[in-house]
């Protein structure tokens, strides 16, 4: 336990903050500390967590991507058109098509970065504008509400009636989210590729001299984010029961903030799946709590922004300066 706190500083800090917020909220509201609310939190965070673990892999590899949320919109729209064209389809076809579109767009980013030596921030800002501009141009901003039944049908994986008569449930997005999280965790911690991604992100030139295939690393990282973006896009369409071309516009910033809050470093080589999930959960729990406390929804963003600003200020000032007793243990 003590070892975990020493090696996972950011994660521990986030856990403590989440615990404190949860404690305050469960005392301040009678709705927070219920199974129903916990399940709601999981259901609403799913899409952002899928995005987040994908982005984490790119950040670990030392890149950055702004374009994934609009890539998800492209995948969402493309899949909706494709299944309408073949006249039905099912989840398997939907996931394959959305995933392939996502991987394709991710690999396009990787190809531009690798092939022409353009920095990833420049590439992703360009492709952000290209993807979004073309999507809005070709779709004329028209939403699709007429989706196939398999996509819009609400699927509850687990549901139970509470003593007060209300139903609580865990729905399909949570299952997809768990699979994506476990897959990403396996990729970055249990495979050689994961080890190489960290090495590459930490020191690209060193990794190259060590014989790590740089191009492969880039394509894997951006392809993985593309895959996650495609899946998240489809899950978002399922959750919202509609495909709106600009629905995910702007989501990239919230996800990026949450992932970096979770300890991933812009610059590469650092970050864990646990921290990344906790980062998203912290922002979601804050919004959820404010909602339950009856705070105006207009204030949510303000408070979340302030919390992130304070959190990074504290986490980047050295922890031992704030907590003197840790210094004696030589942390």
């Amino acid at each position, binding site marked *: 336990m003590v070892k975990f706190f020493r090696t996972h500083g950011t994660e521990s800090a986030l856990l403590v903050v989440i615990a404190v917020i949860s404690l305050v909220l469960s005392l301040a509201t009678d709705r927070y500390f219920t199974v129903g609310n916990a399940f709601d939190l999981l259901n609403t965070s799913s899409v952002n967590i899928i995005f987040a673990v994908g982005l984490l892999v790119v950040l670990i590899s030392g890149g950055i991507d702004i374009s994934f949320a609009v890539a998800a919109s492209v995948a969402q729209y493309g899949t909706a058109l494709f299944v309408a064209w073949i006249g039905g389809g099912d989840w398997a076809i939907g996931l394959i098509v959305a995933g392939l579109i996502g991987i394709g767009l991710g690999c396009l980013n990787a190809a531009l970065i690798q092939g022409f*030596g353009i*920095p990833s921030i*420049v590439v992703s*800002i360009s492709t952000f504008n290209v993807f*979004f*501009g*073309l999507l*809005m141009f070709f779709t004329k901003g028209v939403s699709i509400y007429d989706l196939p039944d398999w996509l819009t049908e609400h699927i509850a994986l687990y549901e139970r009636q509470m003593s007060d008569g209300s139903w609580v449930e865990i729905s399909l997005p949570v299952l997809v989210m768990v699979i994506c999280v476990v897959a990403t965790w396996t990729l970055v911690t249990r495979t050689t590729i994961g080890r190489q991604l960290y090495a590459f992100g930490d020191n690209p030139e060193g990794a190259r001299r060590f014989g790590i295939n740089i191009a492969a690393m880039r394509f894997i990282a951006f392809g993985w984010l593309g895959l996650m973006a495609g899946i998240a896009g489809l899950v978002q369409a399922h959750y919202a029961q509609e495909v709106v071309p600009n629905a995910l516009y702007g989501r990239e*910033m919230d996800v990026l903030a949450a992932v970096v809050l979770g300890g991933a470093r812009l610059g590469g080589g650092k970050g864990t799946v646990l921290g990344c999930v906790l980062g998203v959960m912290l922002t979601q729990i804050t919004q959820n709590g404010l909602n339950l406390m009856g705070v105006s929804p207009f204030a949510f963003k*303000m408070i979340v922004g302030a919390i992130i600003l304070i959190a990074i200020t504290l986490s980047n000032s050295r922890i031992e300066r704030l907590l003197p007793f840790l210094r004696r243990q030589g942390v």
Partner: protein
Amino acid sequence: MSALFQRLNAPFVRDMAGPGFAFLAVLIVFSLASPQFLSGATFGSVAFQLPELGLLTLAMLMPIITGGFNLAVTFTANMAGLTVAWILGANGGVDASPEVFALAVVAALGVGALAGFVMGLVIAFTRAHPILVSLSMMIFLRGLGEFLTRGGDVSGFPDFVHPIGHGSVLGIPVPMLVLLLCVAIWHIVLTRSRLGFGTYMIGSNIEATRYSGINTRRVVILVYTLSGIMCAVAGIIMMARFNSVRVGHGESYVLITVLACFLGGVHPDGGFGKALPVFVALIDLQMLSSGLNILGANQHLATAVWGLLLITVMICRWLVVRARTTFAHSRK
């Protein structure tokens, strides 16, 4: 050939090459595509639309040269615009006097400076990544603005505000004059002042700069404060142009300001970049947008083409660098 490469390596030509080449390309392509393109109307519309984006891009420029970012530019501008609107509203609304407006402008510049100052402070003292700091400031300011306005418009300004957004002096739109003045100020600050020197040095190597005796924290804080003030100028111009203030006006500009900086030859890791090539890059983007508009395409296609233009310029730069190294090797 070698003389040509030497000429291409001269600082001014090298900085201007990318955006200048793009300028010519856009000019030629659209002149061939549409006879209406080379007309006063095109340049008039460019001159009216450029300033909002241009001022925000200047606000983005200095932080990028230090190797950072200021993603809060548009919402800082919105908050400054709101400040003006409220002070005018609290002092007579449409009947407010010019003195009140002057006071409001000073207060708006103060709000912009404060937002930038806080970001600079956090970045300088915690060394957190500027993307993250400015991102959380952006989320905070957007939330604050939405909270205070409930997502609505604020309008009702005195008549003398109108010419600031729509008037012309000697045929040049007033917003354009403001932009030209700001470009000149930025150019002088970057090339002729100690602050500018420090800005470039920090972008190249912040540790070495600190060891050489420059107070890097002070420079970073000043850069972000100036950036915030420039946002406030943009906010005031936007207020006069739209005749209203709304949180979210110009939201889509955030990434385009970064795009314009890179197109203007600013190095993404910092250390290199000048105000004038960025200004030319901005004209490129606006001309593209106007040209596509004349051809009947919409704003979204223009956005896509802006992205493609940046990729194309980066690929061309890569080709030039490769050709240069190949040439150098073949001479040995």
